[in-house]
């Protein structure tokens, strides 16, 4: 198992190196990070020359990248165009985004298991048909439009209730002060709609997968033999079938983490969150090489860690993997 994990980690390193170089080179070639500074009246040429020197704009891109890697290896992700250290900047925004993502994933899994197993147990029932229609519709719905729909629904809901219950703008109310509890409630109110959007999108594909996996297990010979031994159906399904039917979903969820983070970027734009999505778009628009590359490395690392966690869960559930 340990060897398997180490091999997985070793495979991830070239992925991060290659993709970070691509992002570094593309953002570096996209534009002049000091364009805004240059266009501002009254900025001394010496200031621009100094900033240009600090950002090493005169050096070739591969050399700048290698310098960046050398510092990144020691945990220093450089500074942004405005001179802010990148690592804390990214961590601050990552915290905001992960709040939504780490809540949406379990929510999506729970929904997918309920719908998937439910419709597999009763094929062609009302639940099965409703689940099929719902997941097909959700798979076909772009996440940014679904976010817009839910935002609109949230506004209407608030109007109907007469006060703001679910917030539709931002990740927290500006300038909120008070007890720890008041702040938690405020953040929870802001979390509802974005998290729901992300969870629904993830749930759609997973529930289809869970349905197919459950049907497959229900037809497996060991389940037939459990039935033939006269075990009550409840025990056959609950104990024998379900445990194995839930395992494959773990792998699917793991492969979807990157896509979910990508979806979070769009959800954040709709709900005007200041998380990783905003940070990336600002970095790309401002040709901020260090922020964009740091963004990529940090998100890729998060995905890799989440993937490893999923592998561990998979191994814990499936002895064939654990002992391999």
């Amino acid at each position: 198992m340990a060897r398997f994990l180490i091999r997985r980690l070793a495979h991830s390193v070239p992925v991060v190196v290659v993709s970070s170089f691509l992002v570094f080179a593309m953002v570096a070639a996209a534009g002049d990070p000091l364009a805004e500074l240059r266009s501002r009246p009254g900025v001394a040429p010496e200031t621009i020359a100094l900033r240009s020197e600090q950002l090493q704009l005169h050096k070739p891109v591969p050399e700048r990248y290698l310098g960046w890697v050398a510092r990144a290896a020691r945990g220093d992700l450089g500074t942004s165009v405005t001179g802010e250290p990148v690592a804390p900047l990214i961590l601050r925004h990552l915290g905001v985004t992960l709040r939504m993502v780490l809540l949406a994933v379990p929510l999506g899994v729970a929904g997918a298991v309920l719908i998937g197993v439910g419709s597999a147990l009763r094929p062609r029932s009302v639940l099965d048909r409703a689940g099929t229609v719902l997941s097909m519709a959700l798979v076909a719905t772009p996440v940014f439009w679904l976010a817009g729909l839910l935002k609109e629904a949230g506004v209407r809901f608030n109007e109907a209730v007469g006060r703001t219950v679910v917030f539709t703008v931002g990740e927290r109310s500006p300038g909120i002060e008070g007890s720890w509890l008041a702040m938690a409630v405020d953040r929870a109110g802001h979390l509802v709609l974005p998290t729901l959007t992300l969870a629904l999108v993830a749930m759609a594909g997973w529930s289809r997968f869970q349905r197919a996996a459950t049907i497959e297990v229900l037809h497996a010979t060991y389940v037939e033999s459990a039935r033939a031994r006269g075990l009550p159906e409840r025990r056959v399904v609950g104990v024998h079938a379900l445990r194995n039917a839930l395992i494959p979903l773990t792998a699917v969820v793991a492969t979807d983490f990157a896509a979910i983070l990508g979806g979070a970027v769009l959800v954040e734009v709709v709900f005007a969150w200041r998380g990783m999505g905003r940070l990336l778009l600002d970095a790309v628009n401002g040709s901020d090489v260090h922020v964009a590359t740091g963004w990529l490395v940090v998100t890729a690392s998060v995905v890799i860690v989440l993937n490893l966690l999923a592998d561990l869960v998979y191994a814990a559930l499936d002895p064939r993997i654990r002992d391999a």
Partner: protein
Amino acid sequence: MGSSVVARRFLRHRSGVLGVVALTGLFALATVAGRVTPAGHRRLTTDYSQAPSLRHPMGTDAIGHDLFLQVLHGAQKSLQVAVVVTVLATVTGTVLGAAAGYRGGWVDSVISRLTDLVLTVPVIVVLVVAAARLRQQRDSWLIIALMISVVAWPQIARVVRATVLSLRNRSFVTAAQGLGASSARIIFVDLLPNAVAAISVSATLTMATAVLLETALSFLGLGVSAPDPSLGRLVATGQGAARTRPWLFYFPGIVLVSICLCFAAIGEGLRSALGPDDDER
């Protein structure tokens, strides 16, 4: 299985047929509209912010654009992107996936790492960064289609690789090897025909993915550039007006969802036409 059998089985799949008919109809309508009023989607009328009417079936925006023509034009662009991406990604993915599955070794390692890349790095990020670099170009939809192909092919390669891997030690392959067939011949004549079902289903899925990625990029302002309308940008501009002029937000979104639903239905139809008889799944 002969192609006529597949066609007959596909035609029995009602929603799949409906998907083909609807998409063909949409594309034809957009083409006709493009012929009748070549710059109709760009024309500024004096009907500002009008609700849907006979004159403007989907209403107009604040500066008098006819939303129906804009949506048609945007849908056409999305479909063009989908077709280009699917052709490029399917050909590349099939060839490289088959090579990886059959040859193994370093070819397999390189292709597997590329697949990992797409599973580790959010695809939208690669596209956002590349789009920022390339957005000044003309014919932006073609560039976007190329970019999406680059991130879309590993998915198909993965499917093809898995199919080839499961078949390459079967006796008919050993027999072909024994008869002295070249690797290329074995891949194209013996192995790939067995992967047609898997390839065509993932190709249809790729179409939907391409549409979703193109519109997402345009939604962020990095996709199909003005003056060409894109469904993604229409949704983005309609968002702010969802309250006062709901048609600007809902119509582009509904058309977008319908396009993706059609692709999903076609995929289901192909799956049932090409797959084994299995009514329960």
